[in-house]
C-alpha cells in the first residue's frame, strides 16, 4: 500500500486529506493519471508529486510503504 496526501484545492476536490492505494511497482506518472481520472476536475498538468517528502520524477517507481503527496501550485510567502 502507498499513502497519498492531499492539500489545498486538491483536498477540497477529493474530499479527503489522505487515502491508501495498492500502487507499488507502478510509476509516479501512472499514479497521477489514475488520480486525475478518479477525481474529475483535477488539473493533472499543474500537480506535482512528492514521494517521501521530495519532489519525484514521472518515471520514478513507487515502493510498498511510500508516502506520496499531490502538490498543487504552491503559494506560500
Amino acid at each position, binding site marked *: 500500500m502507498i499513502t497519498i*496526501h492531499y*492539500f*489545498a*484545492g486538491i483536498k*477540497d476536490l477529493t474530499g479527503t486529506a489522505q487515502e491508501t492505494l495498492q500502487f507499488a511497482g507502478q510509476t*509516479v*506518472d501512472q499514479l*497521477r493519471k489514475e488520480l486525475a481520472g478518479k477525481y474529475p476536475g483535477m488539473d493533472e498538468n*499543474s500537480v*506535482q*508529486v*512528492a514521494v517521501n*517528502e*521530495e*519532489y*519525484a*520524477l*514521472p518515471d520514478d517507481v513507487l515502493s510498498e510503504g511510500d508516502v506520496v*503527496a499531490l*502538490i*498543487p*501550485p*504552491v*503559494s*506560500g*510567502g
Partner: protein
Amino acid sequence: MKAFNVVAEPIDPQLYADYVLRPEAGAVTLFTGHVREWTKGVKTLYLAYEAYVPMAEKKLAQIGREIEERWEGTRVAIAHRIGELQISDIAVVIAVSSPHRKAAYEANEYAIERIKEIVPIWKKEIWNDGEEWIGDQKKKPEGETI
C-alpha cells in the same frame, strides 16, 4: 526554535534575527511578509495557510543550504506560519546574516523567491463574498519535478 520552521502560532521575528547574528556578521536582513488588506482592488478579510509540514521544513532547510553555498559566510533562518492569519499578521520571516550587506540583501530576496517556487505551502484568500486557494502559476522548479 528551529532555524527552518513551520509554526501555527504568531512569529516573533527577532528570534530569527538573533539566531543568525554572529561576530563575523556586519549585516542582518530580516524580511517579514504580512497579510495585506487590499490585493488588486479586492479587500481581504483574512488568509488561511496550509502546509505539508515535514516536507515544507525540509525545503526551507534546502533553501538555507543553497544560500550558504552561494553566498559565502551567510547564515539563514526561515519560518512560515500556517492557520488563519489576520491583516498585518506575519506569514513568513526570513533572516540572513552576512559579513557584508550586499549578500544579505541578495540572499534574503533569493529566499522568498525560492519559497514561492518550491515550498509546499498554500494560501487561501477569504473575502466578503467568497474564498479561493491561490496558485502562484509559477513555472515548475527546474529539474526536480514532473
